């Protein structure tokens, strides 16, 4: 059981994966942050889609090397801007569309899941996250490329 929650940091030649976690719920922000920290990620949490876009858009690459976020995890049900709206905005933005987005929801609505996946979400998790979800999450984190310039160049 301990293995699914712990993650031994590999030799620090690899830069950390920086994850943006978006959730209007305070407890959920704490939980997802802790889970991601356990996966050796650097984590920034925000409480709304609007705030997420502000943070994402202030990090325009200054040089080809600057990638600020490697992964975005967002809650679906949020007031004002839903996780789905945020996903669409990200996919429609040149400098952001290659950042993988994972959507989470406390409600198991198949249509919702399909729409998100069709809109380009990498994956969809039901909340609260179970230990059995951690393997999938860990794989997403591991598959995030942290190659400088990658996201920027592929949007040219």
């Amino acid at each position, binding site marked *: 059981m301990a293995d699914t929650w712990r993650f031994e940091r590999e030799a620090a030649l690899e830069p950390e994966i920086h994850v943006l976690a978006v959730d209007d719920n305070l407890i959920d922000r704490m939980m997802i942050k*802790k889970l991601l920290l356990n996966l050796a990620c650097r984590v920034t949490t925000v409480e709304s889609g609007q705030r997420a876009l502000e943070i994402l858009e202030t990090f325009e690459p200054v040089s080809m090397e600057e990638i600020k976020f490697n992964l975005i995890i967002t809650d679906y049900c949020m007031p004002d801007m839903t996780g789905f709206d945020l996903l669409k905005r990200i996919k429609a933005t040149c400098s952001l569309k290659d950042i993988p987005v994972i959507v989470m929801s406390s409600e198991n609505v198949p249509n919702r899941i399909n729409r998100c996946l069709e809109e380009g979400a990498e994956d969809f998790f039901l909340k609260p996250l179970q230990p059995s979800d951690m393997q999938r999450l860990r794989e997403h984190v591991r598959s995030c490329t942290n190659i400088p310039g990658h996201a920027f160049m592929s949007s040219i």
Partner: protein
Amino acid sequence: MEVLRLQQQLIELTNSLFQEGFLDDQFTQIQMLQDEGNPDFVQEVVGLFAEDSERILSELTKALEMEPVDFKKVDAYVHQFKGSSSSIGAQRVKAVCVDFRAYAETENKEGCLQALQQIKQEFFAVKSKLEALLQLEQQILAAGGSVPMME
């Protein structure tokens, strides 16, 4: 020996919390996230849950006192509360939230007021039990013992 007695009390309290449905497995997940790097994780989560819930309950009380009642607003608050209580494993609170949402959806003010009363009862019950649990853990650690991990 003091430590043994306290540990026994903790085990009994924890067992009853689960058996009586106050807490579910989600709380165990939270306990498992506590480690040397975050030795106060459970306490922090419980503290935030308590604070945040009291805020939501106060907003809900106000919202139901308005004429006319904005049921969409009520529903939004209950949704938040359902989310937090679910994330922390406060099973009975979450169950009342489900009923509460149904009343809000059908714009049933009486039902909402009843559900609010019930939620307050359940919340304060689980809050005081969680506080007792955390206090026992502190006492055990202070007495030089270790907190027994539940299977």
